[in-house]
């Protein structure tokens, strides 16, 4: 299949990576078929495609995490070219210096970040960055023992570089905080910096903006911009529809993965549906349907509550489904939910009525997941009451709340990795037959699904229309989903909206 390549300004820039004839199939399912691609220095690529089109697979192949079935990859990013041909011969596997493994590919100047960040959680931020830089002596226990002054000399340099980088990231003063205690936006930036400090010339970023509020998105974008302008790095960014608009202006080239092949074009036109600062996310209108009556309310600490009242099901604010009264929740020493803008304890109150869809948009660190944890019974609030269908559920454990009609989809839903899709659907014991949504992958193990496929499965299993009255609570339910999948799950959600309410949370806005 022909690939159309247009490289306007970077035509003369040196090629850093060239791959051709890349094929990858899982079982009988062909995901990539004779892909050819080329990366030049300074390019910023948006790699897009529907859920399950093979974006992560391609990223894994180009970073040495997965072997292609056949094809050839050439890296020119590190001075001396290195090429890998597939399928590899058995004797190549034995050669300890020619392995196609993440560490060898990383030494060719290839860096990557993961969608789930993967910082070294128990270590300080400084150490997280310091580890990326190589200390020729210090990484060897022999020198560490017998030649400490060589090691220390380099350590001083490394720690200085790490501190400088942290200052650059706006994290001065936090050098010694442990990496699992910073916000999502901060940790995504530290992860990018870590890859850069490891000597990456090409950086592959898997959904760097997902799950971030406006502040986090801006911070990551500023960092990426400076990497491109000042360090002339080459970036390949995988990002889903709803965040793509933020990347406009940064992207020079567009890779569209579709039907096992890649189409290359220059990015000139705005890519798709936009969602600017003020406008609501595009899926709001899908949820609202013909009804465009949004009732908005602002909450403390920059959160925004939107109510959509389903004309067919909503009568008057008389039948409460969920009542939260004067809730105060603490994590450790600190109160998180229930403070007003001045930081005084006020208690958080919220009522959801029958036939309402309520969307809570709040910045990272606001406490969305904490609130949902309290509703579902995983976290015990310090003060306050939660009632479901008029009955207090304060003393009910998780499973009793579920029997009373609560359905929760958490943001990092853990599906059973070793069960097949079919088995998971059977376990959830749905009234409707949702296996029709998964015609091709019913027998696949859950751990082999793509990010979007997993989210879609979790959504459809958790949120099943049922006969009894239910409250659906969804924490960031659309993350990782493409437009079609969002439309599909929303239709599914609404198809059963009889005597229910829906509560959705998403990241948004700025933290004041």
């Amino acid at each position: 299949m022909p690939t159309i390549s247009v490289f306007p300004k970077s035509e003369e820039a040196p090629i850093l990576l060239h791959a051709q004839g890349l094929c990858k199939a899982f079982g009988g399912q062909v995901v990539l078929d004779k892909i050819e691609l080329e990366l030049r220095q300074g390019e910023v690529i948006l790699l897009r495609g529907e859920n399950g089109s093979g974006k992560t697979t391609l990223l894994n192949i180009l970073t040495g995490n997965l072997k292609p079935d056949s094809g050839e990859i050439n890296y020119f990013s590190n001075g001396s070219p290195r090429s890998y041909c597939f399928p590899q011969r058995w004797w190549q596997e034995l050669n300890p210096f020619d392995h196609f493994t993440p560490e060898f590919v990383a030494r060719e100047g290839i860096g990557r970040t993961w969608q789930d960040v993967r910082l070294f959680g128990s270590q300080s931020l400084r150490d997280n960055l310091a580890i990326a830089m190589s200390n020729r002596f210090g990484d060897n226990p022999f020198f560490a023992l017998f030649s400490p002054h060589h090691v220390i000399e380099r350590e001083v340099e490394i720690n200085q570089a790490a501190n400088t980088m942290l200052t650059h990231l706006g994290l001065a003063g936090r050098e010694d905080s442990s990496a699992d205690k910073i916000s999502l936006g901060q940790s995504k930036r530290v992860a990018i910096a870590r890859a850069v400090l490891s000597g990456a010339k090409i950086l592959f970023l898997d959904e760097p903006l997902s799950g971030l509020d406006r502040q986090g998105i801006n911070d990551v974008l500023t960092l990426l911009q400076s990497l491109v302008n000042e360090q002339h790095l080459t970036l390949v960014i995988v990002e889903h529809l709803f965040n793509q608009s933020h990347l406009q202006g940064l992207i020079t080239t567009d890779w569209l993965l579709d039907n096992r092949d890649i189409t290359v074009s220059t990015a000139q036109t705005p890519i798709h549906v936009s969602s600017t600062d003020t406008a609501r996310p595009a899926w709001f209108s899908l949820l609202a349907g013909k009804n465009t009556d949004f009732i908005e309310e602002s909450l403390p600490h920059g959160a925004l509550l939107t109510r959509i009242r389903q004309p067919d099901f909503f009568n008057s604010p008389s039948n409460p489904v969920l009542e939260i009264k004067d809730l105060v929740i603490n994590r450790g020493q600190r109160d998180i939910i229930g403070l007003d803008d001045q930081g005084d304890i006020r208690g958080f109150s919220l009522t959801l009525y029958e036939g309402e869809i309520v969307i809570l948009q709040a910045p990272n660190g606001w406490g969305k997941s904490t609130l949902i944890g309290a509703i579902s019974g995983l976290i015990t609030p310090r003060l306050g009451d939660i009632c479901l269908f008029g009955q207090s559920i304060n003393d009910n454990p998780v499973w009793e709340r579920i029997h009373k009609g609560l359905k929760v989809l958490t943001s990092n839903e853990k599906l059973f990795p070793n069960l097949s899709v079919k088995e998971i659907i059977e376990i959830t014991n749905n009234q409707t037959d949702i296996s029709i949504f998964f015609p091709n992958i019913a027998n696949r193990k859950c751990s082999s699904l793509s990010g979007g496929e997993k989210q879609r499965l979790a959504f459809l299993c958790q949120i099943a229309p049922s006969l009894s009255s239910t409250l659906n609570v969804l924490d960031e339910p659309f993350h990782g989903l493409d437009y079609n999948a969002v439309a599909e799950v929303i239709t599914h959600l609404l198809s059963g909206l009889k005597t229910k309410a829906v509560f959705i949370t998403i990241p948004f806005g700025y933290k004041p």
Partner: protein
Amino acid sequence: MNYLLHLLVYFDIYAILALSLNLVVGYCGLLTLAHASFYAIGGYACALLMLTANWGFLPAMLTGAFLSAVASLTISLSAWRLRGDFFVLASLAVQTLIYSAIYNWSSSKYPIGSWENLTNGSFGLTGIPSPKLFGWEINGTFDYAVFATGVAGLCGFILWRLKSSPWGRLLLAMRDDELAARGLGKNTRLAKIQAIAIASAIAAVAGALYATHVRYLNPDSASLDESILMLNMVIVGGLGNFRGPLVGAAILVGLPEILRFFDFPDAQAANLRLLIYGLLLVLLMHFRPQGIAGNYRLE
């Protein structure tokens, strides 16, 4: 006084073992049940070389450490691919293998230390000479306590320097997220081999100390019980830092001695000890999964 000095020697030996085991369990996140095997290899190698070849203590001990490091490849190679439960099983297999080799490598027709009767089986090795070091004949209990404390201090210093080096940092990163560390170009397989080899070599030093202190060695020192005792020290004391294993070693060496003051008959005391170990572990896992002084919890 003599009694306290004996206790100090035991503490030294187990402190070395616990600290070195912590390098594997606490820093690499690999739960191994084979540590006692490497301890025994060190003890047997040192004892045999001194008994049959008349080697001095230092070369015999270093040879034992080297052999132990080589033998540790059996578990580090399986750590290339295995993690979690499967690695525990692989280490258990290695432990069983080495224990039965030591137990069965005997034949009464041949002299001890010959190829046919290397370990003298369950009878063990007796009459191991006491160490002589640069003209210092280490004979009395006091001398030995000084010597053992010196060796433990040295081993502790080596481990401490390694753990606070960039290499130690690499181990911690690998424990937290191996794939992320590899993505930064780190050779984690090599780091695992190095860590396990160093830990095993140091365990062998403890073995040499034990053999020359007690002057008798039998296959019990390679037994699973011994491995579990070491693991207990690390887990009770706490994983992933330096003081944890020391605290654990002190508690588990001290506990049987405290029981001794209560005048239980010997047979009961042994059972009681096991009971208390078990109880301690269960309570700890419930209330303080990272151990008394540790900062990392095993999943």
